[in-house]
């Protein structure tokens, strides 16, 4: 049984579980079977069942997590590829993204504070709309709990992907570009994957939305939190 806490075994397990989750999601097409969520739940149950501590798991896990930062840097490439699309619609995109970003941060902070969430939790919720690596980096920078942010970001992605089109139908958001960027802005990569289901055009603008809101959120979150007196 001691073998089960071997670093390379736990790394292999993580790769295998994630690959299996990806296959399950593509077979079923269910957004809720998000591979990150499914893998994490499986590994948590495995660790609880075998009594292996999270510190032991992270001895291997840190080598996976190490790639988060270079992966965020790599987002500079899709951003560069979208530059001409951004330039064409620069003002409408920037203004709507900016509004979505600010409203997203302020509303989540206000509702959480109103319902009595602790300061640490409020700080962890602020960047909830953007793609996880960016959200976690922002949370780290403002002093929240990055893992809590990761969880909330996944929940937001599932929720946004599931309800997004319904919400937009009810509120008369009909233009494909507006629908695309709204989904990407509010529900990052998972909203983008939902938009991709409808058409590539929706998907392209959703990825634009997630990129711009990622930047805005990283740039503005500390300042907005300071103005609101949270930090």
């Amino acid at each position, binding site marked *: 049984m001691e073998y089960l806490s071997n670093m390379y075994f736990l790394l292999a397990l993580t790769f295998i579980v994630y690959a299996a989750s990806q296959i399950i999601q593509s077979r079923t097409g269910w957004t809720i079977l998000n591979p990150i969520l499914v893998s994490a739940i499986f590994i948590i149950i495995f660790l609880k069942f075998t009594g292996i501590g999270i510190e032991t798991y992270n001895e291997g896990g840190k080598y996976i997590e190490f790639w988060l930062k270079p992966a965020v840097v790599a987002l500079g490439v899709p951003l560069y590829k979208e530059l001409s699309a951004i330039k064409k619609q620069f003002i409408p995109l920037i203004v709507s993204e900016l509004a*979505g970003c600010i409203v997203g941060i302020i509303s989540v902070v206000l509702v959480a504070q109103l319902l009595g969430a602790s300061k640490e939790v409020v700080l962890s919720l602020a960047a909830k709309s953007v793609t996880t690596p960016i959200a*976690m980096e922002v949370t780290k920078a403002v002093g929240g709990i990055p893992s809590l942010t990761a969880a909330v970001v996944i929940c937001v992605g599932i929720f946004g992907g599931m309800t997004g089109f319904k919400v937009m139908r009810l509120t008369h958001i009909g233009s494909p570009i507006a629908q695309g960027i709204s989904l990407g802005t509010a529900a990052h990569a998972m909203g983008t994957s939902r938009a991709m289901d409808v058409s590539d055009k929706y998907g392209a603008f959703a990825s634009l939305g997630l990129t711009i809101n990622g930047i805005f959120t990283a740039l503005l979150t500390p300042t907005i939190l300071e103005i609101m007196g949270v930090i």
Partner: protein
Amino acid sequence: MVIQCAIIFGCLALGELIVWLTGIKLPSSMIGMLLLTTLLSTKVIKLKHVEGMANFLVKNLGFFFVPAAVSLMLFFDIIKAQWLPILLAATLSTMLVIVVTGWIHQLMRKL
């Protein structure tokens, strides 16, 4: 591969340097990302010198935070204690972001 890693980690290292020098409250990786975009658009770096590695990293973004999601088990107590504010704040705010972004974009396009 080595050149591609050199560029990506070079941008990251520059990002770290900028954070270290200025004490700015921004993730070094985000600064690195903006540096990479700038270097590409000013033609200092060619797309082919970074594209393969960048695609690999971006495509597997999700996988890289599985350990962080596993570490969530450390925070079950804080989530359990405050699940209602977390749930309501996240869902209400997400719907609001969708509506505000979409409305303002449609409005701006009409002007």
